[in-house]
């Protein structure tokens, strides 16, 4: 055994996992998209196990309110780019591998180019737009996508778009969910998430990546694992051997203009401010402006100003971004912005 393989001797002792299997990991190039609750543990274990090249893509910065599940970051890292910090940390853990940060937001314009250098894509993102984008780009580029997603105490894992023995492709995300109205599904900051779920699902994703690269049996293709960490019950739902979708082009991602809380504070007298939250949330507290719940926006587009900036806000910036997308789609004459980090960002401003 080569000296450089000593680190991996405990996995190379596994039945059917010798030096040639370890060399497969060393030669593999894996792109992890999203360095958050799922991406941190997935990257940590793929680095530890000796995957030769690991790309980590995240345009976002470390936020204190995510440290409970994003275990690669310290409070001192707050405000720094997650991909860069994660790569630095993991390079110390395993100096023998290549770690490549990607700090640009992944869009329909750059996704094919970014994934071009990788063999496997790991979907650790936190939003539907990027999930669909990665899925479709994986299909168009003929690369497998190892999918993971979490909600409160529940997670899902699957491996999409693997070439079967007969040459056909296994199912992908659109076989399961052809399209989603993202505004209807709350994200982690609204619905909450238990950090250990992120750890379990991220490790399961890394496990599927290793199984795929090493040609192991039992890769989660043609099925989806649904895991509940309250009851500890898991189930594997069979989808079928072959995809029924036909994906021929990428949906164009919409670039949402955002405005920072500070910029809004300075210009609040000159903009049309619109709260897109529910009536219940509006009742509790607001920062002024008009109130048009997101699901009533399409019927009220005539209320939007074309003479000044329109700023939408919600609790976290997610539904307000959806509002901007609707406006860009239906009323191009309106100059619409989303309040970054929503009311959460606004109250952060008040505290300082």
């Amino acid at each position, binding site marked *: 055994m080569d000296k450089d393989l000593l680190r991996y001797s405990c996995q190379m002792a596994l039945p059917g996992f010798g030096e040639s299997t370890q060399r497969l990991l060393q030669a593999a190039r894996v792109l992890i998209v*999203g360095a*958050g*609750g*799922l*991406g941190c543990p997935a990257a940590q274990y793929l680095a530890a196990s000796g995957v030769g090249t690991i790309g980590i893509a995240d345009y976002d910065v470390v936020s204190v309110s995510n440290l409970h599940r994003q275990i690669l970051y310290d409070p001192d890292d707050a405000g720094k780019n997650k991909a860069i910090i994660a790569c630095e940390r993991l390079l110390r853990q395993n100096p023998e591998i290549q770690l490549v940060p990607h700090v640009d937001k992944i869009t329909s314009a750059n996704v094919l180019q970014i994934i071009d250098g990788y063999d496997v894509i790991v979907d*650790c*993102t*936190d*939003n*539907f737009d990027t*999930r669909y984008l990665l899925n479709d780009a994986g299909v168009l580029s003929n690369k497998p996508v190892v999918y*993971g*997603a*979490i*909600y*409160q105490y*529940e*997670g*899902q894992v699957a491996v999409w778009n693997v070439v079967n023995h007969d040459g056909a492709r296994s199912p992908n995300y659109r*076989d*399961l*969910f*052809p*399209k*989603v*109205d*993202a505004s*209807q*599904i*709350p*994200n*982690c900051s609204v*619905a909450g*998430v238990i950090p250990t779920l*992120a750890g379990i699902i991220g490790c399961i994703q890394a496990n599927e990546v290793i199984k795929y690269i090493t040609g192991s049996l039992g890769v989660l293709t043609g099925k*989806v694992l*649904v895991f*509940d960490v309250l009851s500890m019950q898991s*189930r*594997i*739902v*069979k*989808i*079928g051997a072959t995809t029924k979708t036909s994906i021929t082009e990428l949906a164009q991602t919409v670039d949402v203009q955002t405005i920072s809380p500070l910029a809004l504070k300075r210009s609040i007298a000159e903009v049309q401010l619109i709260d897109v939250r529910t009536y219940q949330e509006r009742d509790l507290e607001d920062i002024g402006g008009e109130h048009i719940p997101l*699901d009533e926006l399409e019927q009220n587009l005539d209320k939007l100003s074309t003479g000044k900036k329109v700023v939408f806000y919600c609790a976290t910036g997610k539904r307000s971004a959806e509002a901007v997308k609707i406006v860009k789609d239906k009323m191009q004459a309106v100059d619409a912005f989303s309040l970054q980090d929503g009311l959460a960002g606004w109250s952060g401003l008040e505290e300082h």
Partner: protein
Amino acid sequence: MTITILAFGIAKDIFGSNTITVDLHGDVDVACLKDTLEDRYPRLKQLSSYMVAVNNEYADNTLALTMSDEIAIIPPVSGG
């Protein structure tokens, strides 16, 4: 026919429970189940798509249902 449905993810919130029962009439298939659920819970339809799993297999609209089937509603999940 009365069937029991297990709810996952946001469907737990939409149904207000981890399990619900529904009475189905006429052609008792997945399409009929979805119509009945979406009538009772309009928010379910607003998701645009959700998976119906029958005995741990993805079920399309034409699948006929029986009382002994284990039926789960599994909506999409976005968190990471």
